[in-house]
């Protein structure tokens, strides 16, 4: 809904007066194209080096990273959950059944209440992509990733990243995300943290305090 209020007109009038002109679509588009973009916009490393970089950067944020072949995902999921002593995890729709080991309870998110999410041990999701240089995983409201609350309220997040979905730089990631730019999107770089006390980054405030990543080929 857009409303033509007098305040809107007044603010636009002030801007045009300040700029001595009113802008239009063509002028804006042409001006935008003239912005110099001489920064790094493509990958420079070999794929293996890039994956190592992602692993290093995630570990530096206190995330645990496990490498796995496609056929051993369920096995590694089981190992992580045993080590973390997690039994009941929420999963979004679209998670491959082959990823889920026996012996644990996976609760499909069909609109669980926040209280119900809070009572679960953790969440298992896939991911849209990962950025090696910054150690970032991107989640969108898509199959296998789900709505934002499920990767937020539970205290433990086990996230699966496919090596095919790893890019090196932030610009590559934004280009990748462009066609789904209007979906609810979350960039996650390590577990919840704060530096508000004496500027020291410490793990764990309101989001999941533990982040495990399985990087599979």
């Amino acid at each position, binding site marked *: 809904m857009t409303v033509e209020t007098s305040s809107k007109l007044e603010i636009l009038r002030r801007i045009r007066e300040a700029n001595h002109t009113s802008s239009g679509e063509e002028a804006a588009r042409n001006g935008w194209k003239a912005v110099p973009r001489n920064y790094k916009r493509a990958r420079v490393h070999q794929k293996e080096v890039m994956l190592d970089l992602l692993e290093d950067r995630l570990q530096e944020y206190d995330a645990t990273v496990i490498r796995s072949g496609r056929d051993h995902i369920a096995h590694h999921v089981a190992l992580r959950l045993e080590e973390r002593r997690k039994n009941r995890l929420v999963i979004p729709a679209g998670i491959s059944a082959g990823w889920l080991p026996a012996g644990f309870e996976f609760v499909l998110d069909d609109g669980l209440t926040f209280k119900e999410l809070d009572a679960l041990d953790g969440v298992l999701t896939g991911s849209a992509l990962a950025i090696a240089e910054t150690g970032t995983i991107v989640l969108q409201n898509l199959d296998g990733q789900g709505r*934002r609350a499920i990767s937020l309220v539970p205290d433990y997040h086990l996230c699966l990243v496919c090596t095919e979905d790893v890019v090196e730089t932030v610009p590559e990631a*934004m280009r990748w995300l462009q066609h789904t730019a209007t979906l609810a999107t979350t960039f996650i770089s390590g577990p919840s943290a704060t530096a*508000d006390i004496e500027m020291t980054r410490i793990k764990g405030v309101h989001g999941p305090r533990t982040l495990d990543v399985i990087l599979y080929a």
Partner: protein
Amino acid sequence: MSGTALDPKTAPAFPIAARAAMKDSQLQRNVHHATQVIQTKRARVVAEMADWQELREAGEHIRRHTMEHLDFYLQEFEVNCARAGGIVHWATDAEEARQIVVGLVKASGSDEVIKIKSMTTEEIALNQALESEDIHPFETDLAELIIQLGRDQPSHIVVPALHKNRKQIKEIFQREMHLADLGDRPEDLADAARSFLREKFLHVRTGVSGANFLIAETGGVCVVESEGNGRMCLTLPETLITIAGIDKILPRFEDLEVMLQLLPRSATGERMNPYNSVWTGVHAGDGPQTFHVVLLDNGRTGILADWESRQTLHCIRCAACQNACPVYRQTGGHAYGSVYAGPIGAILTPQLQEMHYAQSLPYASSLCGACYEVCPVKINIPEVLIHLRQKVVEQNAAQVSSSFDIEALGMKAMAVTFRNERRFRAAQRMGRAAAKLLPRKDGWITWLPGMLGGWTQMRDLEEMPQETFRDWWQKREKDDR
């Protein structure tokens, strides 16, 4: 519950407030320590970016371009946000913004709101407005919670409680959360905040946020944070109200590729902060089903109209200039009498007040240029400071009373003297003669009379030489012949 807001209209002038801050050695230690840590971290992650200068260059151009087409981009944002189910409001000033937000909170049927840290809501003193209507705002950012529970004021743009150390924070939490056994490790304090706020996150139906970026192309909003409190406030309530300055616009989604590299490294010295959220209007079955954006002017178009200082609006609120500033690092943030402290505050605050208040802030700088060097979007803060000093002088000169102003008279006399060589030489001779009468210590002058005393208040002046450079030069020429 919250204390009196930092208000440039009523705050003491910077030199007075700074003197008080300089006496608080605990405050100085805390500010020194925190800014030192953050500067070291920043330097490390900036140094590993071979293309940092190219990113700054792009950042500067994107911001300048946005300001040149601000009317177009704001309307584009409004159309796209509305198409996605958001409702856009426009507020010319703080009062209008407060009225809109209070009205929207009431309409949401809630008498509590959960809040993400937002300097814009601090700027318009939103919490006081909510409280006066019996609506309780809960600050959920750890630093803002410390400020709110301690009835304190923010002293830094990114880390508002940077002036408090862990022991002081522990005392506040013990008292306000009734936790007798609380430890003072940062982990203990973070855990206390987690338990204290969890119930609120799960139950409060209305959230209030600021915004880091508004994306014109998509109508999306981006919030950058660390703790997950932001994600809680953006995701769990039924109604979300976002307040953003009109300067927060970015033309396209793709422009985030520049800002999301510049901002985290400059702000907290991290390659990327733990969480960035981007959402566009209302997403069915995911997050708030009612979403409002309030676009705030509150003096920003006035800054836009001043071509020499409009670059102030390019600021992305990283606070790198605060951490780098030798003045801020001595005084901390409160001395600036505004929620925007440090170098960016010294240029932003007086302009948001149409230069009527906070006139001492453009002088709260040694013009060393450290702020310019670290600014991720290359705002030339020293240049703007000098421009604003000139405006302060002009504005004061325009007032009738200033015809009798001693400083203005002195400056006029100096201009007359400097314009004529004979007069200039005579003045130099007189100055040397007068200087002989001044009290000295080992060749240093320690006291100057009247207005000149400002110089010797904090430092000594070297004794004047017997011969001026001009005399020496002339003598040298004669000798050569």
